[in-house]
Protein backbone atom coordinates (compact mmCIF):
# COMPACT_ATOMS: atom_id res chain seq x y z
CA UNK A 1 0.00 0.00 0.00
CA UNK A 2 2.70 2.47 1.02
CA UNK A 3 4.80 1.37 -1.94
CA UNK A 4 1.96 2.06 -4.36
CA UNK A 5 1.46 5.43 -2.73
CA UNK A 6 5.15 6.25 -3.06
CA UNK A 7 5.04 5.29 -6.72
CA UNK A 8 2.03 7.56 -7.27
CA UNK A 9 3.80 10.49 -5.62
CA UNK A 10 6.88 9.81 -7.71
CA UNK A 11 4.82 9.71 -10.95
CA UNK A 12 3.08 12.98 -10.04
CA UNK A 13 6.42 14.63 -9.27
CA UNK A 14 7.93 13.42 -12.55
CA UNK A 15 4.98 14.70 -14.53
CA UNK A 16 5.12 18.10 -12.82
CA UNK A 17 8.86 18.28 -13.45
CA UNK A 18 8.42 17.44 -17.14
CA UNK A 19 5.69 20.09 -17.55
CA UNK A 20 7.80 22.60 -15.65
CA UNK A 21 10.89 21.98 -17.84
CA UNK A 22 8.91 22.30 -21.08
CA UNK A 23 7.05 25.44 -19.95
CA UNK A 24 10.18 27.16 -18.61
CA UNK A 25 11.89 26.40 -21.93
CA UNK A 26 8.92 27.93 -23.77
CA UNK A 27 9.08 31.07 -21.57
CA UNK A 28 12.81 31.44 -22.24
CA UNK A 29 12.29 31.08 -25.98
CA UNK A 30 9.46 33.61 -26.21
CA UNK A 31 11.01 36.50 -24.24
CA UNK A 32 13.32 39.08 -25.81
CA UNK A 33 16.30 39.06 -23.38
CA UNK A 34 17.43 36.36 -20.91
CA UNK A 35 18.65 37.31 -17.41
CA UNK A 36 18.38 36.04 -13.82
CA UNK A 37 15.13 37.83 -13.00
CA UNK A 38 13.52 36.28 -16.07
CA UNK A 39 14.65 32.83 -14.91
CA UNK A 40 13.05 33.39 -11.48
CA UNK A 41 9.76 34.81 -12.81
CA UNK A 42 9.59 32.30 -15.66
CA UNK A 43 10.32 29.36 -13.36
CA UNK A 44 7.58 30.38 -10.90
CA UNK A 45 5.04 31.02 -13.65
CA UNK A 46 5.95 27.69 -15.25
CA UNK A 47 5.43 25.94 -11.91
CA UNK A 48 1.91 27.37 -11.62
CA UNK A 49 1.20 26.46 -15.25
CA UNK A 50 2.58 22.94 -14.70
CA UNK A 51 0.12 22.37 -11.83
CA UNK A 52 -2.69 23.71 -14.03
CA UNK A 53 -1.61 21.48 -16.93
CA UNK A 54 -1.56 18.36 -14.72
CA UNK A 55 -4.98 19.25 -13.32
CA UNK A 56 -6.34 19.74 -16.83
CA UNK A 57 -4.94 16.41 -18.00
CA UNK A 58 -6.43 14.58 -15.02
CA UNK A 59 -9.79 16.32 -15.46
CA UNK A 60 -9.92 15.44 -19.17
CA UNK A 61 -9.41 11.79 -18.22
CA UNK A 62 -6.68 10.97 -20.75
CA UNK A 63 -4.16 8.46 -19.34
CA UNK B 1 3.15 51.11 -54.05
CA UNK B 2 4.37 50.99 -50.46
CA UNK B 3 0.96 52.23 -49.29
CA UNK B 4 -0.83 49.29 -50.87
CA UNK B 5 -0.98 47.05 -47.75
CA UNK B 6 -2.39 49.88 -45.59
CA UNK B 7 -4.98 50.71 -48.27
CA UNK B 8 -5.97 47.05 -48.47
CA UNK B 9 -6.28 46.91 -44.68
CA UNK B 10 -8.46 50.03 -44.61
CA UNK B 11 -10.68 48.63 -47.37
CA UNK B 12 -10.96 45.30 -45.52
CA UNK B 13 -12.00 47.05 -42.30
CA UNK B 14 -14.53 49.25 -44.12
CA UNK B 15 -16.16 46.30 -45.91
CA UNK B 16 -16.22 44.09 -42.79
CA UNK B 17 -17.68 46.87 -40.62
CA UNK B 18 -20.38 47.75 -43.17
CA UNK B 19 -21.32 44.09 -43.56
CA UNK B 20 -21.51 43.66 -39.78
CA UNK B 21 -23.94 46.54 -39.53
CA UNK B 22 -26.08 45.37 -42.44
CA UNK B 23 -26.49 41.74 -41.30
CA UNK B 24 -29.41 41.41 -38.85
CA UNK B 25 -29.21 37.80 -37.60
CA UNK B 26 -27.09 37.77 -34.36
CA UNK B 27 -25.41 34.42 -35.07
CA UNK B 28 -24.25 35.54 -38.52
CA UNK B 29 -23.29 38.86 -37.01
CA UNK B 30 -20.99 37.07 -34.52
CA UNK B 31 -19.03 35.56 -37.43
CA UNK B 32 -18.76 38.98 -39.08
CA UNK B 33 -17.70 40.54 -35.79
CA UNK B 34 -14.81 38.09 -35.54
CA UNK B 35 -13.82 38.95 -39.14
CA UNK B 36 -13.98 42.65 -38.24
CA UNK B 37 -11.78 42.04 -35.18
CA UNK B 38 -9.17 40.25 -37.27
CA UNK B 39 -9.31 42.98 -39.94
CA UNK B 40 -8.77 45.68 -37.31
CA UNK B 41 -5.82 43.73 -35.85
CA UNK B 42 -4.29 43.52 -39.33
CA UNK B 43 -4.77 47.26 -39.85
CA UNK B 44 -3.17 48.08 -36.49
CA UNK B 45 -0.19 45.87 -37.33
CA UNK B 46 0.17 47.56 -40.73
CA UNK B 47 0.13 50.94 -38.98
CA UNK B 48 2.99 49.71 -36.71
CA UNK B 49 0.93 49.41 -33.53
CA UNK B 50 1.47 45.77 -32.52
CA UNK B 51 0.43 46.34 -28.89
CA UNK B 52 -3.00 47.58 -29.95
CA UNK B 53 -3.19 44.70 -32.42
CA UNK B 54 -2.52 42.21 -29.61
CA UNK B 55 -5.36 43.49 -27.43
CA UNK B 56 -7.67 43.72 -30.44
CA UNK B 57 -6.90 40.07 -31.26
CA UNK B 58 -7.63 38.99 -27.69
CA UNK B 59 -10.96 40.80 -27.67
CA UNK B 60 -12.06 40.37 -31.27
CA UNK B 61 -11.20 36.80 -32.15
CA UNK B 62 -12.65 34.91 -29.18
CA UNK B 63 -14.27 37.14 -26.57
CA UNK B 64 -16.82 39.07 -28.68
CA UNK B 65 -18.22 35.97 -30.46
CA UNK B 66 -18.39 34.14 -27.11
CA UNK B 67 -20.47 36.89 -25.52
CA UNK B 68 -22.77 37.26 -28.54
CA UNK B 69 -23.35 33.52 -28.88
CA UNK B 70 -23.92 33.04 -25.14
CA UNK B 71 -26.46 35.89 -25.12
CA UNK B 72 -28.26 34.41 -28.14
CA UNK B 73 -28.40 31.01 -26.46
CA UNK B 74 -29.76 32.46 -23.21
CA UNK B 75 -32.42 34.61 -24.95
CA UNK B 76 -33.58 31.67 -27.09
CA UNK B 77 -33.82 29.36 -24.06
CA UNK B 78 -35.84 31.91 -22.11
CA UNK B 79 -38.19 32.48 -25.07
CA UNK B 80 -38.71 28.71 -25.40
CA UNK B 81 -39.46 28.32 -21.69
CA UNK B 82 -41.98 31.15 -21.76
CA UNK B 83 -43.73 29.62 -24.78
CA UNK B 84 -43.92 26.27 -22.96
CA UNK B 85 -45.43 27.96 -19.90
CA UNK B 86 -48.06 29.68 -22.03
CA UNK B 87 -49.05 26.37 -23.61
CA UNK B 88 -49.26 24.60 -20.24
Amino acid sequence: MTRRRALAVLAAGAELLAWWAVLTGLWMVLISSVDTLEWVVGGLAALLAACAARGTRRASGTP
Amino acid sequence: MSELPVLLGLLFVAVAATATVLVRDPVRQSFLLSVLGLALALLFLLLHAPDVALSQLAVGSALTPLMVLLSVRKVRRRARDERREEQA
Partner: protein
Amino acid sequence: MNGWTAAGTALLVCGALPAGWGVATGPVRRRVVAQNAMTTLLSLVFLLLAQGFVRTAYQDTALVLAVLGPAGTLLYVRLLADRLAAGPPLSRPLSAVTPLNYVAVAVVVVPLAVVTDPGRALVKLLVIGVLLVLGSGVAGRAVAVAVDAGHGPRGHI
Protein backbone atom coordinates in the same frame (compact mmCIF):
# COMPACT_ATOMS: atom_id res chain seq x y z
CA MET C 1 8.00 47.51 -49.91
CA ASN C 2 10.29 44.49 -49.95
CA GLY C 3 9.72 40.89 -50.99
CA TRP C 4 8.42 39.73 -47.61
CA THR C 5 5.83 42.51 -47.38
CA ALA C 6 4.78 41.78 -50.96
CA ALA C 7 4.45 38.08 -50.13
CA GLY C 8 2.39 38.94 -47.05
CA THR C 9 0.10 41.21 -49.09
CA ALA C 10 -0.26 38.51 -51.76
CA LEU C 11 -1.17 35.90 -49.13
CA LEU C 12 -3.65 38.38 -47.65
CA VAL C 13 -5.35 39.03 -51.01
CA CYS C 14 -5.28 35.43 -52.28
CA GLY C 15 -5.78 33.56 -49.01
CA ALA C 16 -7.13 35.48 -46.03
CA LEU C 17 -9.63 37.72 -47.87
CA PRO C 18 -11.36 34.81 -49.72
CA ALA C 19 -11.46 32.94 -46.40
CA GLY C 20 -13.03 36.05 -44.84
CA TRP C 21 -15.68 35.99 -47.58
CA GLY C 22 -16.29 32.34 -46.67
CA VAL C 23 -16.78 33.32 -43.01
CA ALA C 24 -19.20 36.13 -43.91
CA THR C 25 -21.51 34.15 -46.22
CA GLY C 26 -23.02 30.71 -46.65
CA PRO C 27 -24.10 27.92 -44.28
CA VAL C 28 -22.77 27.66 -40.72
CA ARG C 29 -20.47 24.67 -41.37
CA ARG C 30 -18.67 26.52 -44.17
CA ARG C 31 -18.33 29.59 -41.99
CA VAL C 32 -16.69 27.64 -39.16
CA VAL C 33 -14.25 25.88 -41.51
CA ALA C 34 -13.43 29.22 -43.19
CA GLN C 35 -12.91 30.85 -39.79
CA ASN C 36 -10.28 28.23 -38.99
CA ALA C 37 -8.57 28.81 -42.36
CA MET C 38 -8.74 32.60 -41.99
CA THR C 39 -7.05 32.71 -38.58
CA THR C 40 -4.29 30.35 -39.79
CA LEU C 41 -3.65 32.36 -42.96
CA LEU C 42 -3.80 35.72 -41.18
CA SER C 43 -1.27 34.48 -38.64
CA LEU C 44 1.03 33.59 -41.53
CA VAL C 45 0.45 37.07 -42.99
CA PHE C 46 1.52 38.56 -39.64
CA LEU C 47 4.70 36.44 -39.70
CA LEU C 48 5.55 37.62 -43.22
CA LEU C 49 4.84 41.26 -42.31
CA ALA C 50 7.06 40.99 -39.21
CA GLN C 51 9.88 39.78 -41.43
CA GLY C 52 9.14 42.50 -44.01
CA PHE C 53 9.16 45.30 -41.43
CA VAL C 54 12.34 43.82 -39.83
CA ARG C 55 10.61 43.88 -36.42
CA THR C 56 10.82 40.44 -34.85
CA ALA C 57 8.65 41.64 -31.97
CA TYR C 58 5.70 41.75 -34.39
CA GLN C 59 5.82 37.95 -34.42
CA ASP C 60 4.02 38.06 -31.06
CA THR C 61 0.76 38.95 -32.82
CA ALA C 62 1.12 35.79 -34.94
CA LEU C 63 1.78 33.78 -31.77
CA VAL C 64 -1.30 35.14 -30.03
CA LEU C 65 -3.45 34.53 -33.10
CA ALA C 66 -2.09 30.97 -33.40
CA VAL C 67 -3.38 30.31 -29.88
CA LEU C 68 -6.65 32.29 -29.99
CA GLY C 69 -7.78 31.39 -33.53
CA PRO C 70 -8.37 27.68 -32.83
CA ALA C 71 -9.93 28.67 -29.49
CA GLY C 72 -12.46 30.79 -31.41
CA THR C 73 -13.18 27.95 -33.82
CA LEU C 74 -13.71 25.49 -30.94
CA LEU C 75 -16.03 28.06 -29.38
CA TYR C 76 -18.22 28.15 -32.51
CA VAL C 77 -18.17 24.34 -32.69
CA ARG C 78 -19.29 24.07 -29.06
CA LEU C 79 -22.00 26.73 -29.15
CA LEU C 80 -23.38 25.95 -32.63
CA ALA C 81 -23.21 22.14 -32.32
CA ASP C 82 -26.90 21.69 -33.16
CA ARG C 83 -26.60 23.70 -36.39
CA LEU C 84 -23.43 21.86 -37.39
CA ALA C 85 -25.03 18.45 -36.80
CA ALA C 86 -28.09 19.30 -38.93
CA GLY C 87 -27.36 18.72 -42.60
CA PRO C 88 -25.28 16.48 -44.84
CA PRO C 89 -21.68 15.41 -44.06
CA LEU C 90 -18.82 17.76 -44.95
CA SER C 91 -18.34 18.15 -48.69
CA ARG C 92 -15.02 17.26 -50.26
CA PRO C 93 -13.75 20.88 -50.71
CA LEU C 94 -14.51 21.67 -47.06
CA SER C 95 -12.65 18.62 -45.76
CA ALA C 96 -9.67 19.62 -47.94
CA VAL C 97 -9.29 22.96 -46.12
CA THR C 98 -7.32 21.58 -43.14
CA PRO C 99 -4.64 19.88 -45.33
CA LEU C 100 -4.44 23.15 -47.31
CA ASN C 101 -3.75 24.97 -44.02
CA TYR C 102 -0.86 22.58 -43.34
CA VAL C 103 0.56 23.27 -46.81
CA ALA C 104 0.28 27.04 -46.32
CA VAL C 105 2.05 26.87 -42.94
CA ALA C 106 4.90 24.84 -44.45
CA VAL C 107 5.21 27.14 -47.48
CA VAL C 108 5.52 30.25 -45.27
CA VAL C 109 7.41 28.98 -42.22
CA VAL C 110 10.14 27.03 -44.04
CA PRO C 111 11.52 30.03 -46.03
CA LEU C 112 11.28 32.23 -42.91
CA ALA C 113 13.22 29.58 -40.94
CA VAL C 114 15.87 29.46 -43.66
CA VAL C 115 16.57 33.22 -43.48
CA THR C 116 16.42 33.33 -39.64
CA ASP C 117 19.74 32.92 -37.85
CA PRO C 118 19.91 29.81 -35.64
CA GLY C 119 19.05 30.69 -32.06
CA ARG C 120 16.05 31.60 -29.94
CA ALA C 121 14.38 33.51 -32.78
CA LEU C 122 14.42 30.39 -34.93
CA VAL C 123 12.98 28.26 -32.09
CA LYS C 124 10.23 30.86 -31.56
CA LEU C 125 9.34 30.79 -35.26
CA LEU C 126 9.20 27.00 -35.25
CA VAL C 127 7.06 27.03 -32.08
CA ILE C 128 4.59 29.34 -33.85
CA GLY C 129 4.57 27.03 -36.88
CA VAL C 130 3.94 23.93 -34.76
CA LEU C 131 1.17 25.76 -32.84
CA LEU C 132 -0.47 26.74 -36.15
CA VAL C 133 -0.39 23.16 -37.45
CA LEU C 134 -1.65 21.69 -34.15
CA GLY C 135 -4.38 24.33 -33.74
CA SER C 136 -5.60 23.94 -37.30
CA GLY C 137 -5.64 20.17 -36.94
CA VAL C 138 -7.48 20.14 -33.61
CA ALA C 139 -10.08 22.66 -34.78
CA GLY C 140 -10.58 20.86 -38.10
CA ARG C 141 -11.11 17.54 -36.35
CA ALA C 142 -13.55 19.12 -33.89
CA VAL C 143 -15.62 20.47 -36.81
CA ALA C 144 -15.61 17.06 -38.52
CA VAL C 145 -16.71 15.30 -35.31
CA ALA C 146 -19.47 17.86 -34.68
CA VAL C 147 -20.79 17.50 -38.23
CA ASP C 148 -20.70 13.70 -38.10
CA ALA C 149 -22.53 13.69 -34.75
CA GLY C 150 -25.82 14.32 -36.58
CA HIS C 151 -25.50 11.20 -38.73
CA GLY C 152 -24.35 8.41 -36.45
CA PRO C 153 -22.49 5.33 -37.63
CA ARG C 154 -25.08 4.59 -40.36
CA GLY C 155 -24.64 7.90 -42.09
CA HIS C 156 -21.50 6.76 -43.86
CA ILE C 157 -23.02 3.91 -45.88
